[in-house]
């Protein structure tokens, strides 16, 4: 009884004849059309999807804000009910932080980190796709409360015991909790991905202190995410178990201390605010040198201060809890640590001004936003230092003074930074410029609008207007300023509208110039938009600001820098690599991601769905592991990991 040798249906990785893979594991091949977006693992496409989603949620959060301001434009307002108001401010905060600032940061980081370090993609492209799909499903899930019985209404900080089912019986908080767990999974996976990319996949010669500041700040952000997200995930699980499975983690009658939630939340929450601002700091550190025609002043100090902020950010969380009943010793300690975290931030601001000083300033829209960040973030940072004085904070906390502070640093800081990034990098991503004329309108409307909206909040806060209140009484001295704030909010909305018009209209603008800004860093050393494989040849890096130094050289006679090459010449001289291996598309990431909201639905409505969702996740993960390494006709080489080039020296 002899056996006949059969050819296997699964590839064994030993080369030789390849049979067709089993149908379900074939990798998709679409390169255009909607299918290519659903199965893409290209970091650039993923980044664009992040960006579009983020801007959509920016508008959603903005509408929530406008409703809030309509209600508060007069005392004893009746525009919305108390319940709806509580849902609005909860969702406004949650949407803006988790569904706008974090993903827009992810958009920039996903797009530009590989380009800035000279790689062809991130370390784990399918994981990257999974991060996006998990994010968008989590974001939608979070907002389902609006349609299914009421959105979350406990504040974005969701203090216990008010977050329990006794005090908030609708499912809104459940959607909030599970939605944030899902988006947390997305961000954690993304963080691991980007850390490995930055540490392992830099171009030859790109030592860690030759990386652009944007990449550096992003690296710090990813480390913060990796350590902070587990903390809030734990808190969210505790809350989810309390609400859905009868646990008593935050129930004082069962012996729990409600402050447990506050500590867990703020242990995450404070590093979170540095996660929100550092990418914008990175963008500004790119934009200012380009439009000042000078390198960043004190690159090592700026980089180290970013890392310092990352570390010190872990030691200040209880400054959100000065009035919660911590003893005087804790309060004193956190007061001091909070004061000192102002130092590295101050260093950055001064170094940025020093970058501008002595330069040749071109006031493009991008530069205006960057300078606007310097001004507005300084104001927000200084009000933050006044918070550090904890006796004063006992008056300021939970009033509009705090609202003023964080909107100055988040709107005037993070959002202005991202808008600087939009105007700077739009030609790189889309091959077309945004209109400078509309851009200036965008900038001035947003600048004036934000100052009108958030400036007076300092005053009404110190005059005693508490936050998170759906109405205020007449005769308190709040009336006039609240009207001004509401008007300002609509001016901001106008500014955002101008940006959207600018973005849509940019399709009609002329096609790209290769190097419109005369920029300094690696992402400009390729076509706009970049080819799927980013660079025809991975450049070898000899210095910080590599692109600038390829175009400019020191004039031996005068010592000044003169342009010796144009951008297209630099690109031509880079040549072309022989073997370019790219990761293949895949549909398993979206499949895995899709199982997560099903699982979450199960927690809320029917435990059977938990099993269904879990099976979908696990089954899809199995398919992910089983699918062949590359497209069937890509030549049989390579793996799912975009290969790094030769060993990079870790300097």
């Amino acid at each position, binding site marked *: *009884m*002899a*056996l006949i*040798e*059969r050819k*296997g249906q*699964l590839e*064994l*990785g030993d080369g030789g004849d390849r049979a067709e893979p089993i149908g379900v594991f074939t990798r998709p091949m679409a390169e255009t059309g909607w299918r290519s977006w659903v199965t893409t693992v290209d970091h650039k496409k993923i980044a664009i999807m992040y960006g579009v989603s983020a801007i959509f949620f920016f508008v959603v959060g903005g509408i929530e804000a406008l409703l809030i301001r309509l209600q508060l434009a007069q005392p004893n307002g009746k525009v919305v009910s108390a319940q709806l108001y509580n849902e609005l401010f909860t969702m406004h905060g949650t949407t803006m932080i988790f569904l706008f600032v974090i993903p827009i940061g992810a958009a920039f980081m996903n797009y530009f980190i590989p380009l800035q370090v000279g790689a062809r993609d991130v370390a784990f492209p399918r994981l990257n796709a999974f991060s996006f799909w998990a994010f968008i499903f989590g974001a939608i899930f979070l907002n389902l409360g609006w349609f299914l019985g009421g959105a979350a209404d406990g504040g974005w900080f969701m203090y216990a015991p008010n977050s329990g089912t006794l005090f908030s019986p609708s499912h809104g908080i459940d959607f909030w909790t599970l939605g944030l767990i899902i988006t947390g999974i997305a961000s954690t996976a993304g963080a691991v991905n980007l850390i490995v990319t930055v540490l392992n996949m830099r171009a030859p010669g790109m030592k860690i202190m030759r990386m652009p500041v944007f990449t550096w700040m992003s690296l710090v952000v990813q480390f913060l995410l990796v350590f902070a997200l587990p903390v809030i995930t734990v808190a969210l699980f505790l809350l989810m178990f309390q609400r859905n499975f009868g646990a008593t983690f935050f129930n*004082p*009658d069962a*012996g729990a*201390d409600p*402050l*447990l939630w506050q500590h867990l939340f703020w242990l995450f929450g404070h590093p979170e605010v540095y996660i929100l601002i550092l990418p914008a700091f990175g963008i500004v550190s790119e934009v200012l040198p380009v439009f000042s025609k000078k390198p960043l002043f004190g690159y090592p100090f700026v980089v180290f201060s970013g890392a310092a902020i990352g570390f010190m950010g872990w030691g200040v969380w209880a400054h959100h809890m000065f009035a919660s*009943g*911590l*003893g005087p010793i804790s309060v004193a300690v956190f007061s001091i640590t909070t004061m000192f975290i102002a130092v590295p931030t101050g260093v950055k601001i001064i170094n940025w001004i020093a970058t501008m000083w002595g330069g040749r300033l071109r006031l493009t829209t991008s530069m205006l936003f960057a300078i606007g960040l310097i001004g507005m973030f300084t104001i927000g940072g200084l009000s933050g230092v006044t918070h550090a004085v904890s006796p004063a904070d006992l008056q300021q906390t939970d009033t509009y003074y705090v609202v003023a502070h964080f909107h100055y640093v988040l709107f005037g800081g993070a959002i202005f930074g991202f808008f600087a990034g939009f105007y700077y990098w739009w030609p790189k991503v889309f091959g077309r410029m945004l209109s400078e004329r509309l851009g200036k309108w965008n900038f001035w409307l947003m600048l004036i609008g934000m100052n009108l909206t958030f400036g007076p909040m300092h005053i009404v806060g110190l005059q005693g207007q508490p936050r998170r209140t759906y109405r205020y009484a007449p005769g308190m001295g709040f009336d006039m300023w609240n009207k001004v704030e509401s008007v300002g909010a609509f001016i901001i909305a106008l500014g955002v509208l101008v940006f959207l018009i600018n973005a849509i209209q940019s399709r009609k603008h002329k096609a790209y110039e290769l190097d419109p800004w005369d920029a300094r860093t690696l992402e400009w050393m390729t076509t706009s938009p970049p080819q799927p494989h980013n660079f025809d040849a991975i450049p070898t890096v000899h210095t910080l600001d590599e692109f600038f130094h390829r175009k400019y050289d020191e004039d031996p006679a005068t010592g000044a820098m003169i342009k010796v090459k144009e951008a297209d010449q630099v690109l031509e001289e880079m040549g072309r690599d022989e073997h370019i291996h790219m990761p293949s598309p895949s549909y398993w990431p979206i499949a895995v991601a899709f199982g997560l909201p099903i699982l979450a639905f199960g927690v809320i409505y029917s435990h059977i769905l938990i099993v269904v969702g879990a099976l979908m996740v696990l089954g899809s*993960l*199995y398919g992910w*592991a*089983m699918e062949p390494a590359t497209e069937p006709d890509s030549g049989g080489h390579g793996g799912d990991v975009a290969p790094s080039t030769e060993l990079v020296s870790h300097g």
Partner: protein
Amino acid sequence: MITTGSKLFFGATAAAILATLLFIFGAHHEGVYTGAWTLITLAAALAFLGGINAWFRDADPNAAQVEALSAADAEGRVPAAGPVVTPSLWPVLGGVATVLMLVGLVYERRTFVLGLLLLVTVLLEWMVLAWADRYSSDPAANAAIRSKIMRPLEFPVLGAIVGFFVVLGFSRVMLSLTETASVVVFAGVALVIFLVAVALAARPHLKQAIVTTLLGIGAVAVLAGGIASATIGERHVDVELECNKDFGPNQVADKSALLAEITVNEAGADVTDLPAPYATPVNVRMINKTGDDQRFLLTTEDGKVVAAQSCLVGNDQAALFTLRFARPGVFHYGTEERPNLGTLRVL
């Protein structure tokens, strides 16, 4: 024919019969009939298994080949080898799983569920193994295809199981140590992990065996510590169940949640008038400095003892009362001998 496996079973049968005889003649107590019958049943079962094994020869894959060899045809040609069968533990584990399920039906649900999970695993693995064995005639290729299919399932599951036991072990250790010791151990373990990580990072070309050994040592240490701690038990062992002890494990929260701390010495209590809110839990800690053991208690104005009582508290020790009053009222607190050392007025 009597194969190796059959020999095992028949040998075991003989041993069982011998054990039965010894038991009957050696034991002089009540359970002798039960014990004897158990052993006789065991012997019968083993004999049955041995018989089946000998008759069907399933346990000895090479028997087919031996037979084939001995049945060479007239020309002396030997038939081609039969299918290769990879030996494995799955059949045995399948038996273990079945036994666990049966025992669990009688004894406890957890055992049943464990057996069921094990049975599902066995079925899956055995099925895939059997399929892989028929894939080709090359054992190496079969092993590779089996790995490719099963590793994405095995590694995460094994990882989760190992992770679970490490976490469980570590949590038992933390629960059994005193407060200071747990801080030391926690920090110490973190430091050790950090140092090992630094060492590994500094010398990236370490042999895989060394890394595996280090991790193995770590896991074993945690598991051993966990088992030891679980045996020792958690700190604050309950001596008397219906009384209040001092702070539970969460001293920081309890300390910050105190309404008052009352020290009682020979002269009396240092706080004699204590207002308290109703309809919310409040914590009152009473410290014994009288020199003798005391039992603290709370009484109503009429002298009836309120449900909360303290254990016998030694000198320099304390008891923590967590109280929740439904309505305003007046209570007295003190010791068993002097119950009215102070007044607790619930406002």
